């Protein structure tokens, strides 16, 4: 049986992710960077569903991630709920806010929609920064507890340790990736893709343009909420600057860097975006300049991101159509 390239790449990435604690067990810094990259991978997958497949640009997505983050943090810290219901609480809060924002905004034309998402992100940042009694204001919310242990027989996985938390984040990121995989290969995913390609044609074929966009937006914001929650649980503190406009733009850059509309695009983008500046630390102050050059080169020679460049290279090598994007 011949596997498509997308499946091969997915298997390689999943295998690497699963084996990372063993490979980098003695190098906590690398594991730390990988965990942080996974925390960004989750909202990047949400943005991929929204932008890569549906064609909607959101520049305020980290605001929704912040809603998920603060909700989860407050449920765990102040209410004392366990991890799983708190995470679901954060996810539903972000998704519900996405629903409330989406109803009036998704009827707007694309550029107005982008401006509105930017404004929503800024409003949410202002709220995180100023609701001192709830969010801790500019000082943030410290001391967020991490989930407890899991004991299976004599095996104990401590999520408070770096390795344990990496495993937890990896499992959640893999579940969200699986959701994306199923979604884009479904009829629903095809309808979303048709909206990106030609909205009028999609409507003429029976796609409820507004309904499908709203569903994609809610799903995307809910996923962003999960990512935000994992980030603050990892850092053990929620701070407004973790969810500001720059972070939303970074999220979009991660996706474009990895390849929007590719299943593994957000994963590759987040790992590259988070890990590359860290590995460039050897260049001290010059690292951000190097990083800027890398982004420029990619934008010039790989406009469809790393996955797009890999697809072109694969086509040239095999003289065949690569099956990275196709969902059938």
């Amino acid at each position: 049986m011949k596997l498509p390239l997308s499946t091969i790449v997915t298997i390689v990435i999943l295998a690497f992710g699963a084996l990372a604690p063993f490979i980098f067990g003695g190098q906590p810094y690398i594991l730390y960077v990988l965990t942080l990259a996974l925390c960004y991978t989750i909202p990047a997958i949400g943005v991929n569903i929204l932008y890569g497949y549906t064609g909607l640009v959101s520049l305020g997505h980290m605001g929704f991630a912040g809603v998920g983050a603060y909700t989860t943090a407050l449920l765990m810290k102040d209410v004392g709920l366990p991890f799983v219901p708190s995470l679901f609480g954060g996810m539903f809060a972000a998704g519900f806010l996405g629903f409330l924002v989406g109803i009036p905004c998704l009827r707007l034309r694309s550029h107005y929609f982008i401006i509105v998402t930017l404004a929503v992100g800024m409003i949410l940042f202002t709220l995180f920064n100023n609701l001192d009694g709830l969010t801790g204001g500019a000082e943030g919310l410290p001391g967020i507890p991490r989930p407890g242990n899991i004991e299976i027989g004599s095996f104990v996985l401590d999520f408070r340790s770096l390795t344990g938390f990496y495993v937890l984040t990896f499992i959640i990121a893999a579940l969200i990736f699986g959701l994306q995989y199923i979604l884009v290969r479904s009829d629903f995913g095809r309808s979303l893709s048709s909206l990106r390609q030609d909205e009028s044609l999609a409507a003429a074929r029976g796609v409820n343009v507004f309904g499908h966009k709203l569903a994609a937006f809610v799903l995307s914001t809910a996923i962003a909420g999960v990512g935000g929650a994992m980030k603050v649980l990892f850092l053990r503190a929620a701070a407004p600057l973790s969810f500001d406009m720059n972070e939303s733009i970074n999220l979009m850059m991660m996706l474009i860097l990895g390849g929007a509309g590719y299943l593994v695009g957000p994963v590759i983008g987040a790992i590259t975006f988070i890990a590359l500046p860290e590995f460039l630390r050897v260049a001290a102050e010059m690292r951000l300049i190097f990083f800027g050059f890398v982004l420029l080169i990619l934008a010039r020679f790989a406009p469809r991101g790393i996955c797009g460049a890999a697809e072109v290279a694969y086509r040239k090598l095999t003289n065949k159509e690569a099956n990275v994007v196709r969902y059938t």
Partner: protein
Amino acid sequence: MSAILEVSDISKSYGGIQAVNGASFTLDHPGIYGLIGPNGAGKTTMFDIICGRQVPDAGKVLFHSSRVDGVEPYKLARQGLARTFQECRVLPEETCLDNVLFAAQSKRMTSEMLQVFTRNTKHRRDAEVEARRLLRLINLEQYADQPASDLSYGQRRLLEIVSCFMSKPRILLLDEPASGINPTLLNTLRDFLVELYEETKIVFLIVEHNMEFIMSLASTIIVMHQGRVLMQGAPEQVQADESVIDAYLG
């Protein structure tokens, strides 16, 4: 028996321009109908009103006795109204086969979501057989697995039309299907439409400027002029009518 499509006293203006002015016609039995008229006669506006892209200022549109003017295009599509566009539209990134299959899939979100868990492969296989048959009819079967963007304009036009049939429509509206198609492909298109009409026996309403094409294809011609319906009749009657000759055929 009620009419399949009934258009009554439709008016529509854009600012000071009266695009359609009290136009009425009825399509009461299956057949191939042509909608013709000079530029500015109101054909495209009428077409857009029937398809739900425009809301009329006055009048009503009945589809199988249900009022559908102002109904959103996606709802009309689900009721069995399929259409093509003046500017050919296909999903460029999808393969030709996927373009045709997309038209056949349910677009209701609940069934789309459930399909994730209950993949009906037999249904998918049957749809693929039908899609390939339709692609064969327009000589595009060899391009089934190629992206639609690789096709020529004329081939894309054929693909757009063939996709409409996969949704098993009750009425098919074609907006200038012959435009941009070379004479060889035009013959393929004519044969294809006749064959599919014989197979489906539904209403085809075709807006067209190519007189030779539409007169040889349609059984009834509706002529619009200055926002009104000038006459409705068989092609020979229309071609012999003095008012139509004055207004359009020259």
